[in-house]
């Protein structure tokens, strides 16, 4: 009877194998239909919407111990394991509160300006021994000011309408700086021992921890560009005239004498009556471009910068430089070398030093073109053109229309940003994560304004 009962129990389930008790269906490679269904069921992630905007960023590189890079942890590390970084050889992102529209690098200090209508429009960092960054009140001692500013700190400008005026442009020289506003003229601060701030030279004036910021308003029309040379200042007005003040021993004020000028005076010479659209200077030589594409120069010519028109090494009256290289769009003047950009997008260099055509070209009085293939032009990409050219003291920087930055020249304390410490004899690309919109070159550091991808 027991055997019969067991057989009865087993009979219905005899054909099914024991293993299939818990599983449903076969396990095997998924069929195409199962794969497709699994794929359609996966969630879709969205990382960027259609209205995603490109962000504006600031990148800095070069010598950091002066504080000019604006990163305090490079100079005074905030964590125990961090070491002070003397040189930042590759672009480093600087966090800023506002979108920076204009930047300028001086000799060991930097100015950043934004064209906002907020009260704080200009920030400065770096050397402040001559109050070129205004008065930065020290937190430890309320009566004293900082000599080195390690972080972008607001510069208080004595504006009449602080919530309406906008800062258009900033410029820095060796120990002075100029801030251009749209309706309140030009503000100058810093060293004035040669009248470069546009005010009367005071004997034995102490420039450090000074609160004085001078305002310049007497020009024939609105000032649209300010440029600082080493110890002189140039102002370009809307009517196309150029004013200068400051040190003139090399003739860089272009006023016909070699003395200092403490009041901005209009330049004559070959640029009288000419509509100038751009002025450039960084050392002791100056270049101006007219609306017809002609270039004029004055100032120091010890390095053959103006040797094409004159043998004298100090030219104190603007002279026209008759170069037959095409219509010139932009000029950039460095310490010993000059560069111009033509309408076709080619760069011509002349002067002395590392000019960008290999180690053999050290000096030339006549402009030589840098082959466009060095900027990425090739049969594959034939629409690459150089859009802007900038000069530091012994470096050059070029921006292409694709947003790439090329640098060449003396690599002083890593200021080229290539990642290497050697000098660069021909244009070399700087890898910046974004499209470079503008770059400002200093003596040993550079600042660039970049739009993210």
């Amino acid at each position, binding site marked *: 009877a027991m055997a019969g009962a067991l057989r009865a129990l087993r009979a219905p389930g005899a054909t099914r194998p024991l293993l299939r008790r818990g599983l449903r269906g076969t396990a095997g490679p998924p069929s195409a239909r199962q794969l497709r269904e699994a*794929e359609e069921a996966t969630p879709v992630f969205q990382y960027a919407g259609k209205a995603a905007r490109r962000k504006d960023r600031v990148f800095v590189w070069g010598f950091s111990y002066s504080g000019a890079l604006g990163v305090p942890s490079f100079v005074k590390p905030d964590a125990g394991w961090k070491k002070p970084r003397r040189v930042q050889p590759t672009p480093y992102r600087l966090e800023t509160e506002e979108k920076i529209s204009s930047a300028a690098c001086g000799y060991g200090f930097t100015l950043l300006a934004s064209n906002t209508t907020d009260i704080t429009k200009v920030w400065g960092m770096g050397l402040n021994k001559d109050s070129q960054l205004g008065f930065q009140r020290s937190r430890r001692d309320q009566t004293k000011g900082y000599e080195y500013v390690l972080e972008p700190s607001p510069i208080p400008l004595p504006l009449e309408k602080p919530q309406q005026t906008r800062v258009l442009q900033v410029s820095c020289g060796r120990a002075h700086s100029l801030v251009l506003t749209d309706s309140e003229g030009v503000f100058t601060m810093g060293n004035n021992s040669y009248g470069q701030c546009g005010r009367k030279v005071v004997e034995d004036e102490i420039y450090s921890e000074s609160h004085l910021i001078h305002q310049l308003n007497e020009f024939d029309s609105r000032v649209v560009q300010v440029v600082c040379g080493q110890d002189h200042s140039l102002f370009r007005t809307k009517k196309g005239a150029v004013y200068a003040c400051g040190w003139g021993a090399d003739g860089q004020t272009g006023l016909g004498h070699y003395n200092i000028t403490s009041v901005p005076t209009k330049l004559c010479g070959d640029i009288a009556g000419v509509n100038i659209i751009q002025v450039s200077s960084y050392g002791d030589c100056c270049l101006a471009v007219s609306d017809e594409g002609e270039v004029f120069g004055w100032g120091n010519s010890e390095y053959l910068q103006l040797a094409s028109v004159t043998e004298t090494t100090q030219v104190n009256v603007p002279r026209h430089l008759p170069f037959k290289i095409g219509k010139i769009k932009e000029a950039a003047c460095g310490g010993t070398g000059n560069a111009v950009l033509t309408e076709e997008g080619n760069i011509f260099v002349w002067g002395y030093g590392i000019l960008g055509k290999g180690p053999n070209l050290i000096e030339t009085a006549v402009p030589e073109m840098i082959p466009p293939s060095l900027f990425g032009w090739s049969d594959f990409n034939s629409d690459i053109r150089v859009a802007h050219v900038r000069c530091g003291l012994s470096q050059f920087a070029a921006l292409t229309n694709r947003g790439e930055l090329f640098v060449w020249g003396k690599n002083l304390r890593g200021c080229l940003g290539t990642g290497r410490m050697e000098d660069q004899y021909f244009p*070399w690309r700087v890898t910046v994560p974004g499209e470079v919109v503008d770059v400002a070159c200093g003596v040993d550091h550079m600042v660039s304004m970049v739009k993210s991808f």
Partner: protein
Amino acid sequence: LNAAPRRAPRQQVRFLPSPAPGGGGAVELVPARVPVLADHPLVRGPRFRRLKIGTGHQLDVKSSGVLVLGIGHGNKLLTDLYNCHLTKVYTVSGLFGKATDDFSDTGKLIEKTTFDHITREKLERIVAVIQGTNHKALLMYSNIDMKTQEAYELAVKGLIRPMEKSPPIITAIRCLHFALPEFQLEIQCLHETQQYLRKIVHEIGLELKSSAVCTQVRRTRDGVFTLGDALPRTQWDLRSIQDAIRNCRLKVKTELQKTL
């Protein structure tokens, strides 16, 4: 190949006995030209029993395009061509919206993303940056001292190339077609593998804040050999192979002379 007419057998002069013109019985030795028996086809056998065939740069299972083969003496030319370090051109097609584990569309799906924010302009910007960084790598791996005048002259002509082993470098890249979600790029590169190109497509997707997979990799040029020289499957016969070898001979010779 074995059916082709072979060289005529060597001839030798042998002195064969033949009956003298005079009386019967005397045997005279007469010189005659007879073929050497050792050269007889039945003795020698077929001319080619094995062929040495080698390949040039490798091509993946999932890729297509020009593959260079060398036969016999051509293998030595292949090594020389490899040492020339010439660039190869690929046409790579990709698809936005998916990310897989092996970067191609047949792999296991990892993630799906939106891609309607991508425009041709953004793609071209990313492509320009890739080209820029690879150009820098090109100059760095070529091991030339940047401070010399010859380095400058080579850089102007665009002839600086790494002449030894180096990581994959893309010398030129541009966008051919763009129709969301598909896009096609033309990539000219050195020392690369096809999987590296698929990885580049994946990374382009990541840079554009989306994801991309590679659907097709096709080599359109390998050094001096272009699609026009390549033989499609219908032409894999002796006559076309011989014609192709003859046509390429001159090109290969000039290229080798130019570089080495």
